[in-house]
Each structure stands twice: as C-alpha cells, then as structure tokens.
C-alpha cells in the first residue's frame, strides 16, 4: 500500500519519532499538486477561443499595455479558473467527508442525493426568476443542500448507523430530486439549451460574481471540514469506540453532513451538477497520503481543484470556440482512472 510507510520506532527523540513518514510523502504530493495547479493555470490563461502568446499572457497579467489580453485574462479566464478550483475543492472535500462519515468508499454527494437537492433549489429559483442574482442562487443552493443532508441524516442515521439504509436513502433522494429537476426544466422550454449545461455540470460563463457568491459559504465550510477532520478519524474507529473516546457521534455526523450540504451547494450554484469529482478525488488522496483525514481532506481538495481545472480547460478546447459541459470531462477522465485504481492498485 502506498502512503503506509512504516514509522521507525527507534530513531530520534520522542516527538521527532512521532512525525509520521507519511508527512514526508505529503510534502511531495503537495509540491506536485502545486506544480500541477500552476501549469494548468498558465495554460488556462493562454489557451481558449482566443489563443494568447506567452508574452501577451505576461503583459495581460501584470500591466495595462495590452487591454484586450488584460481583459480576457482578468475578466474571463482567471475568475473561471478560480471558480473551477473552488468547485473542485468543494466537491472533493464533500466526498472525503461523506466517505469518512459513512465509512463507505462509494459515498459521494451525487450518489447520496445532496447534489440533486441543491440542484433542485437552484433550478427552482432560476425558473421562477431567470434574472435572479448569483448570491440568491447560492443561498437557495445552500438551503437545498442543507435540506438534502438533513433528510439523509434523519432517514439513515437517527439511532443506529446503517450503511445499507444510507445507500438506499441516498439513491432514493437522488432519483427523486433528479426527477424533479428534469421535470421543472422540461416544463419551462426557454431553458432547455442552458439546462443541458446545468445537468451535466459546467463553468460556461462563470465569473467573479460566482466567486463572490461562493466565498461566504466556502470559507467557513472549508474551515469546519479541517476542524472536523480529527473527529472524523475517531468516528472511523467505529461508533462505540468513538463514543468511548468522547465523540458525540450523532452530533458530529450532523455537523459533517451540514458541511457537506453547504460545500456541495456552492459547487452546484456555480457549476451545476458535476458528478464524480467527489467520488474519485478522495480515493486518489487515500492512495497517496493514507486515511488520516487531517491529511486526506486538504489533499483531496487539491486533487479536486486540479481535476476540475484540467477538465474545464479541456472542455473549453475540444470543440473551440464552442465548448462541451465540463462534467462530461470529469467523468470521462475520472471514471477510467478510478477503474484503473480499483483493478490494479488494491
């Protein structure tokens, strides 16, 4: 198993000895992710419907000498890139939290219906008023995501934990909310074209206002995810052990599901119903840094940011100047990769 490097019990002082060898692995992973994100960022600024030269990218980024390049970079490509990274991070962290709290490697916000709950809220406000401001969409999604997560908790978690009940409840919720979304969109003909992008997930036309709408939710959401990661480690030991160690298991689960609801909702508000990122990124992270959630959650976030920003770059380029929904790429890249991991790395 990767990331399972043994700690040496013999060397160093007690505190040094405690530093896991995994941490060294994490540093390598961190460097690779940052390098990857940097490369994707540069390519995302350069490539698109209008290809810029590296000189134009540089002057557009740093000066006013080329107003067109500056406009393309700062008003279109950078905000979209930032949105992509945040959407990816939010989905990947949601997936990591869900896989941890359900102790089920197949859990992900799409499969458990949280994405669809937020999507229904989003679709509802857009159908009611197409000119609704982005912050209102974000708020509606947050409410929808929280409701979805709350229903999941009540159905699957009150009293004893049951992975089977959770999976069934998730599938049922997902199907129910999904049907409601399609019904809603189909009944309002004007949106049929944009609906497709929403249902498959994409960042078409996303800009700074999406970023500003997400930020008030994402900052506390990510902070809470980090703070809850230690408790998630304890929950992974089983409910009775966790309770014996002083974790109030139901309250902790409810808090974690609420964070999932909010983070997933922000991804939906900005990019529609992107699937698969929440499922595959935590697995990638687990392969590289192991199952300690204090490392797993931040690394999942980085992988999510990387996956969605790469997918969005591809989505913009394949049939440029037109584009395909980004969600198709995340599934197209992510699914075979997960299959590879499952088949050859276990």
């Amino acid at each position: 198993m990767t990331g399972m490097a043994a700690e040496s019990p013999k060397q160093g002082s007690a505190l040094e000895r405690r530093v896991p060898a995994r941490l060294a692995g994490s540093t390598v992973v961190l460097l690779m992710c940052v390098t990857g994100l940097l490369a994707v960022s540069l390519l995302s600024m350069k490539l698109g419907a209008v290809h810029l030269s590296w000189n134009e990218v540089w002057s557009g980024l740093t000066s006013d000498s080329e107003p067109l390049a500056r406009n393309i970079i700062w008003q279109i490509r950078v905000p979209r890139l930032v949105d992509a990274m945040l959407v990816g991070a939010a989905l990947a962290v949601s997936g990591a939290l869900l896989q941890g709290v359900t102790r089920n490697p197949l859990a992900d916000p799409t499969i458990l219906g949280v994405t669809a709950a937020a999507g229904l809220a989003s679709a509802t406000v857009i159908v009611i008023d197409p000119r609704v401001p982005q912050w209102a969409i974000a708020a509606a999604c947050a409410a929808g995501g929280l409701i979805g997560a709350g229903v999941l908790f009540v159905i699957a978690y009150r009293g004893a934990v049951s992975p089977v009940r959770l999976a069934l409840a998730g599938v049922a919720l997902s199907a129910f909310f999904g049907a409601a979304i399609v019904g809603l969109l189909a009944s309002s003909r004007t949106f049929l074209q944009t609906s497709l992008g929403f249902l498959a997930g994409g960042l078409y036309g996303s800009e700074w206002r999406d970023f500003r709408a997400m930020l008030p939710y994402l900052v506390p959401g990510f902070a809470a995810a980090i703070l809850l990661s230690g408790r998630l480690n304890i929950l992974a030991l089983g409910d009775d052990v966790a309770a014996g160690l002083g974790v109030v298991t139901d309250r902790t689960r409810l808090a974690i599901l609420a964070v999932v609801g909010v983070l997933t909702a922000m991804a939906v508000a900005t990019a529609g119903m992107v699937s698969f990122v929440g499922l595959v990124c935590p697995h990638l992270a687990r392969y590289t840094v192991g199952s300690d959630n204090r490392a797993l959650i931040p690394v999942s976030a980085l992988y999510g940011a990387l996956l969605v920003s790469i997918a969005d770059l591809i989505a913009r380029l394949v049939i440029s100047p037109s584009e395909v929904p980004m969600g198709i790429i995340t599934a197209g890249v992510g699914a075979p990769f997960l299959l590879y991991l499952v088949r050859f790395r276990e």
Partner: protein
Amino acid sequence: MRLSIQGLSLGYGRLTAVDDVSLDIESGDMVSIVGPNGSGKSTLLRGIGRLQRPTRGRVLLGETDIRSLGARQVARQLAVLPQSPDGGADLTVRELVYRGRFPHQGILQRLTRADVEAVDWAMKAADVELLAARTLAHLSGGERQRAWIAMALAQQPRVLLLDEPTSFLDIAHQVEVMELLQRLNHDGITVVAVLHDLALAARYTRRVIAMREGRVAFDGAPAEVMEPVGLAKVFGIAMTVLTDPESGLPIPIPRSKASLTPRDAIATDRP
C-alpha cells in the same frame, strides 16, 4: 475512583435489557460480569460506560453523575472498549494508540509532551511496542486486542471497561489478555470486564457479577458465589464446580441440560 450504579435500567425500544440494577464498584477492584446471551451484561457495561442512555437510574463516577459530565470529560477518567472493534484496519498500532489521546486534546489536536508520554506508557503497558509500525489488519487476534487495550490506556483512565476482551482468542491469548488486565489492575486501574468464560472470570477477577434477565443473579467473590445451584439458575444448565488444586479457586464445568434437578429446572425455566 468508585463507580456507583443506582437503579439503572436500559433498553432498546420497548425491550428492557437491564432492569433496575444497583451496584457499587470500589476503586481498584477487578470485576467480571457474566451471564448467558441476552442477560443484559453487555448492555449494563454500555450503560456504565456512557455508550447508551439509561431509561432510568444513574451512574456516579466518584460523586458525579456521568450524564452531567461532558463526553470527553468522562473519557479522560473512564475508558470503554467494545467487543471486537472493527475500525482502523489500515492504521498502524502507534497511530491507533494516539487516537486514544483524543479526549485530552484541543480542537487542533496539537501534540504535547504529555500525549507522547502517555502513548509510550500505554504501548509499554500493553506490550505492543514491538508492533508499533505494524498495521492493525496484519496483526493476530491477540495482538490486535492488546493494541486496542493500549489505545484505551492512552486515555489514562482510572476505570477500564471491556466487553468480552477474550472472545475469538485462543486459550494462550486469552490468558495473555487476562494477565495484562491483572497487571493494569495491580497498577491501580479499576477493571470491569464482561466475560463469557467462567473459568477465566473465577481465576482472574476478585468479584463476579452474574446477570440473568436484566437483573443481578449473584454477586461476590468467585469462591463464594460460584456454586452449582446458583450457576445452574443463571445459565439454565447443570454445573459441577471443581476446585483448582493450586489456587483454591472454583472451576465451573457445564453438564448436560437433562441433568438439572427438578427444582433447578423450575428456577431456570425459559421459553
């Protein structure tokens, strides 16, 4: 630290598993809880360990009701190990033992010198130092049980509760775990263990509490309470009790159900 169980009742839905049990467990004692399946012995342990909310009654730790304390506050004084915990298979033993520091840590879980010392002590006490870097999935049953006990010890508890710590272990590992518990008890930790094996209970604990249908059937020193009639009433099977020539402690031996005397048969009649 003295445990005082007062009129404790616990149940699942409408089913009552523990019915109005009152007990005092003295500080430093080593106690076993025995009884047939479904007698409420594990539920009683869950109630004492704050894993399950009682329907009536209370448990005092020292002078304080454990329900009035925070979960982490209780966990710093009382550790409870459920039966064959199945989580953490991919953790190393050292990582698992560090999890036991949770009730002592702040929200950022920064390691202190006290954490390191407690973990080192716990691993030494449970004799898992040589297993530190092994993952739980690759340990034998006995090694894994010691690793979990080490995790509970890292809590630095005054009271250690264990639910069938010897189940699924072969005879040598059963003895190993019981001797570990005995050592911990000598060091001043109060030990309360649910045990299936009456011979182990007689040999290693100073007080045996037998449960039957949610109530205490008998309670006392093994040599006094482990006698054929009492055991037959609790387990619904005839028992012969021998005396260990070395220790003088009782060794209960089950006989066939048919050999119950009529009086015992009435006393143990169950559908």
